[in-house]
């Protein structure tokens, strides 16, 4: 699903922020990216998502070398093949729950399929409030809608950036359960960047990034 080789990333003219010799993630498998704050976890996620480009080396996602295609194609690839869940589970506040999913279909250039969107919300247990605006939903419901949005275009890869870091133990467990059951149900690989040790027990495989140091795959 993901193959990273001889990856090096630095901001313009700066020192290397991230180096990674070789990392491979098989389809339908999961990995935790861990390490101290500032070690480049989020950067790695953004590189895999094609939001950043490596300074050197290659990242191949689902058979596609992200450096080999244009920015436009990268945006399209991300929209269709990669789902992203952010720390705040941020929903677009001016759109209803269902519209947050429909806009994801539309932006990815896929046909707007309301039935599919409702089915996805249903699989996450929030199909009763599809026309509610984000501020009308509980935090838990917002998280479910955000995960549904990340999965609505049937990506094979889901990236989650610190999904549990601001949550209490109970909510943390709920979100972890939710993510894992969703990816199992939809046959998706999951990469979670986190410094939250509470979910280590659920995703055994770890990619540990030390601060500013070269590293081999775990």
């Amino acid at each position, binding site marked *: 699903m993901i193959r990273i080789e001889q990856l090096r990333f630095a901001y313009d003219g700066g020192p290397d922020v991230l180096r990674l010799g070789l990392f491979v993630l098989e389809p339908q498998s999961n990995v935790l990216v861990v390490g101290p704050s500032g070690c480049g976890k989020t950067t790695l996620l953004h590189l895999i998502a094609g939001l950043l480009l490596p300074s050197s080396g290659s990242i191949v996602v689902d058979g596609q070398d992200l450096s080999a295609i244009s920015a436009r194609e990268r945006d399209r690839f991300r929209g269709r093949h990669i789902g992203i869940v*952010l720390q705040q589970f941020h929903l677009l506040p001016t*759109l209803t729950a269902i519209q947050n999913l429909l806009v*994801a279909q539309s*932006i990815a250039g896929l046909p707007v399929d309301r039935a599919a969107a409702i089915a996805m919300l249903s699989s996450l247990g929030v199909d009763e409030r599809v026309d509610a605006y984000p501020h009308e939903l509980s935090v838990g419901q917002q998280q479910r809608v955000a995960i549904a949005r990340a999965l609505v275009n049937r990506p094979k890869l889901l990236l989650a950036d610190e999904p549990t870091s601001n949550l209490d133990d109970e909510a943390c467990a709920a979100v972890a359960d939710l993510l894992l059951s969703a990816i199992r149900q939809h046959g998706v690989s999951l990469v979670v960047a986190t410094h939250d040790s509470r979910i280590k027990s659920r995703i055994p495989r770890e990619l540990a990034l030390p601060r500013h140091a070269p590293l081999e795959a775990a």
Partner: protein
Amino acid sequence: MTLLQLAWSYLRARPLGTLLNVILLALGVGTIGFVLIVNDQIGESLSRDAKGIDLVVGAKGSAIQLILTGIFHLDVPTGNIPLKSAQELAKNPLIRRVIPLSIADSFRGFWIIGTNPDYIDLYHGELATGHVWNDRMQAVLGSTVAARTGLGLGSRFVGSHGLAEGGPVHGDSVYSVVGILKPTGTVLDRLVLVNTESVWYVHEGNVTDPEELKVIAEDRQVTVLLVQYATPLAAVSLPRKINSETNMQAASPAYETARLFRMIGVGADVIRAFGGVVLATAALSLFIALYHALNERAYDIAVLRTLGARPAAIAMMLMLEALILAVLGGVMGLGLAHGLAAVLAWWMAKQESVPIDAWAFSVKELWLLVPSLLAAGLAALLPSLRAAQANISATLARRA
């Protein structure tokens, strides 16, 4: 869920700001549109009235006054000219037709014009009822006069001297209405038409002594001559000839109307410039709103990018917001322009002045959306570009 719907959702989410920007755009477009509509309508109305008249000849004085009197009947005459001079001029081979107008009296604010049936033909006037005069003291009413005064066939009335109501009344000379014209959309609608002899009769009294009549006939006058050229070449020599060789004055309607418009045009330019200032204010307000939106929505924009939105799509979203406002403001502005024109039309109708059709829409008005779209597009340009160039990775990392 298209970009358009997305843009609209953001506008709906802050209704007051949206309303303010739409109102500002509408005021700008409305002001400019008002000037356009009124200018157009007055211009059309004046050119309808002046159509077919190549030259106006009257007593010496202000050329514009002569035109205002002779064609538009908006001013008092500069004086009269001897009938003999008029008859002399009519013999000139460069002239095809001369229509004499004798203007002295009015009825309830409408001028009574002594003339001949050619004057009705000039404006393609048709009788709605009755017939054209066949004797003195018979009157044909323009449609507006008939409607406003309530006079009908057989009604009798007297004129008063000058235009002001309540002026000296010619109480012993009673006109009777013999015909009423259909509306023509020209000055004809606002006139009372009689034959020239009627005007003489009213002012001379009933003279029966043939000797006295002969003396009086020598001194008879008319007010204005409407001249149609026999050949375009007449324009070169005839006005100059009249102005230099006779004690009459010749004025070209086309030239004087254009001059008049240039004079009014200064006022129109001021109003139009004011509209421009309002539009610029609208653009500034819109710019500020979108610039704020950039900061407020930085994270939304980043999320859209993670969903696969191209930078161009993000720019387009902000641009669409501005353009939606521009269209709404533009359409509201057009409505406002016609509303303002309607108020002016109502006021001018009360003054028996040039009629304005405030609700006549022309395709040309759609051009008024251009300044609105332009203002909005310019306002959105920089915010759109900045949104497109935003560093998504950094935005996402900041919150994380």
